[in-house]
């Protein structure tokens, strides 16, 4: 049952950005939908100055107040929706507080850094009767099309599903490029400095590897394409590219072999492979084998090539077009609220994905396949 207090007025939703220190693109993406209006930015008073600065920036851009009191913002601005994009370790706490205040929640990835928090979030969402959406990429045109083809039975019953998901981005000095004796790189200090040129990753006090930070995307694809829960996982990971990952003991390259419900198998490769590894942001592919055929899908398509003299080296040569991911995610969320339906990636599915990643990280440590809780 949807919480009546969280129903829209005049069909539109008033939204609070509850911390926008990690990505402001989630709030901006939601606000791009005409039914969603960003009315306030809020955060806890004790967050560090850099966090306040980022929140204030978003508030200034939208010409809305920044309130250093989350509960007051949720209470006094007539919002139905909280958009959470804090440091990963605060995600669930903020989302739970919003849910308990009767607000629907849109949350940035990753879900959390702790399994107990994931379980607490699922309980809070389900008990509060509010909707939850983990921001994802499932409505990219190619992914949507693949999902529709599989649902229509064009390749028969899926047997195996694979995702390659590499971000061709740098993250500071390459591994091994610093002189011996240099102190280890501080995770948070690096992420804050890297924010200027957009090469930051998972900002926060807890270092987070690529599997934890980005794994939601490929696993979200699999969840939508084949709809089977992962039961067992074998994984390998390494800090292969970047010194900041190596110094902080978190991976920037990982691979998972998955055993899923119904005998499906699958695999995922994720990495932050360096800007030099791809001309346009990274190789991202979905490959599904079925009983009657198979699909090979480039996540980036449709795209077009743009090349010109004196082109900046970091400007993508292939440019994605016709994407409606932001609008469709927001629309999916609105429909879920309007018709009391589940979202494309709800709290329980997000929790299951986090459980898969947790099992994968354990497998990386033990070298053995691990059952997913």
């Amino acid at each position, binding site marked *: 049952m949807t919480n009546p207090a969280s129903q829209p007025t005049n069909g539109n939703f008033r939204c609070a950005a509850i911390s926008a220190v990690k990505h402001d693109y989630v709030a901006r993406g939601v606000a791009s939908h005409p039914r969603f209006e960003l009315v306030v930015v809020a955060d806890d008073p004790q967050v560090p100055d850099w966090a306040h600065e980022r929140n204030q920036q978003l508030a200034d851009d939208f010409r809305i107040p920044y309130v250093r009191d989350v509960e007051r913002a949720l209470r006094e601005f007539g919002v139905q929706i909280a958009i959470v994009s804090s440091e990963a370790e605060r995600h669930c706490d903020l989302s739970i507080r919003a849910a308990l205040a009767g607000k629907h929640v849109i949350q940035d990835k990753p879900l959390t850094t702790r399994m107990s928090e994931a379980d607490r979030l699922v309980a809070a969402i389900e008990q509060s009767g509010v909707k939850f959406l983990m921001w994802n990429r499932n409505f990219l045109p190619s992914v949507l099309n693949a999902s529709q083809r599989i649902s229509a039975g064009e390749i028969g019953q899926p*047997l*195996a599903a*694979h995702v*390659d998901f*590499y971000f*061709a981005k740098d993250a500071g000095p*390459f*591994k091994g490029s610093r002189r011996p004796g240099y102190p280890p790189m501080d995770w948070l200090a690096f992420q804050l400095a890297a924010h200027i040129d957009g090469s930051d990753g998972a900002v926060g006090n807890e270092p987070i590897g690529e599997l934890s930070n980005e794994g939601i995307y490929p696993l979200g694809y699999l969840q939508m394409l084949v709809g089977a829960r992962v039961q067992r996982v*074998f994984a*390998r*990971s*390494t*800090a*292969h*590219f970047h010194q900041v990952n190596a110094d902080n003991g978190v991976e920037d*390259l990982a*691979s998972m*072999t998955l*055993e899923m419900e119904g*005998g*499906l*198998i*699958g*695999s995922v*490769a994720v*990495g932050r*492979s*360096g800007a*030099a*590894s*791809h001309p346009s942001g990274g*190789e991202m*592919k979905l*490959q599904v*084998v*079925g*009983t*009657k*055929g*198979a699909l*090979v899908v*480039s996540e980036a398509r449709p795209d077009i090539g743009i090349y010109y003299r004196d082109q900046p080296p970091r400007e993508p040569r292939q440019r994605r077009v016709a994407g409606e991911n932001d609008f469709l995610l927001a629309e999916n969320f609105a429909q879920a609220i309007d018709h009391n339906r589940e979202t494309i990636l709800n709290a329980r599915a997000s929790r299951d994905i986090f459980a898969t990643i947790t099992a994968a990280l354990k497998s990386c440590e033990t*070298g*053995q*396949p691990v059952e997913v809780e």
Partner: protein
Amino acid sequence: MIRLAVCGDEARWQMVSARLRGGSINCSLNAADLHPPPGTYDALLLVTPKLQQVGLIERALADGKHVLLVSPTELPPAELESFATSAKQAGVQFAVVNPDRYLPSRQLVRQQLDAGKLGRPGLIRMYRWEPTPASSSNTLPSPLLLDLDLAIWLMGPSPNSVFATETPRATDGTESGRTIQVHLGFPDGPMALLSYSSALPPGDDYRSLSVMGSAGAAYADDHQNMQLIYRGQHPQALRAEEGIRPLVNLTQDFVDALQTQRDLSPSLVEWHRVRTIGQAVEQSLISRQTISMEGA
């Protein structure tokens, strides 16, 4: 000039012969002519040799001919070892090769790795989907052996761990494809994912290779090499093939090795290594556990 005796499509071999330096296809064997006169050739080259051709290989070695076996997945390791012993006694070369190492696309990737342009390989990702229904035996599909070889050839060291899983197979005796996932771990962190399936409907296969290196990456993907043909309704995708070059490349390499007297015996050692890893894959499929290759 090295004179080669070969078996199979004569027209295709003539195309190879026209492209060879220092070698020629002198003798194309067929079912009626399985034992060429010793004076007519210097070396025997067989692609995917069958068990029925063991006698031909033994006689060639006994006659002092060099032998190259391409993709000898159907021959037991003990037989290959016996050939190697015979070759040593006769003072000739005996070698086995994976033809995929000679695909121009794969050779270019290896060259970039050797030149250090891609840095240290961290992840090798391979897909091979085929329309061939697999046999009901528990033996690893032969193409997967070739992929294992290719992954190790590109990575450098041998894997130190092997994990594999596959979709459940039909228990009613019907022929169905096998869909297998192999996960290799290498010392100090690198990894390889090999996705094999023989469940495709009749038609073309699909192959893809990507190598993520510490300084760059290479992508050799059929998806990127498709041409389109429009004949109404949806267009069809047609792969831009690498043609006869793999066969030319491996034949030329064999001829060059014979002319320069390069020792080809390590090829059998590498092949045995791949068979051992293949056995580990089979063990993992049965046990559903990781197989350690430390000390193997």
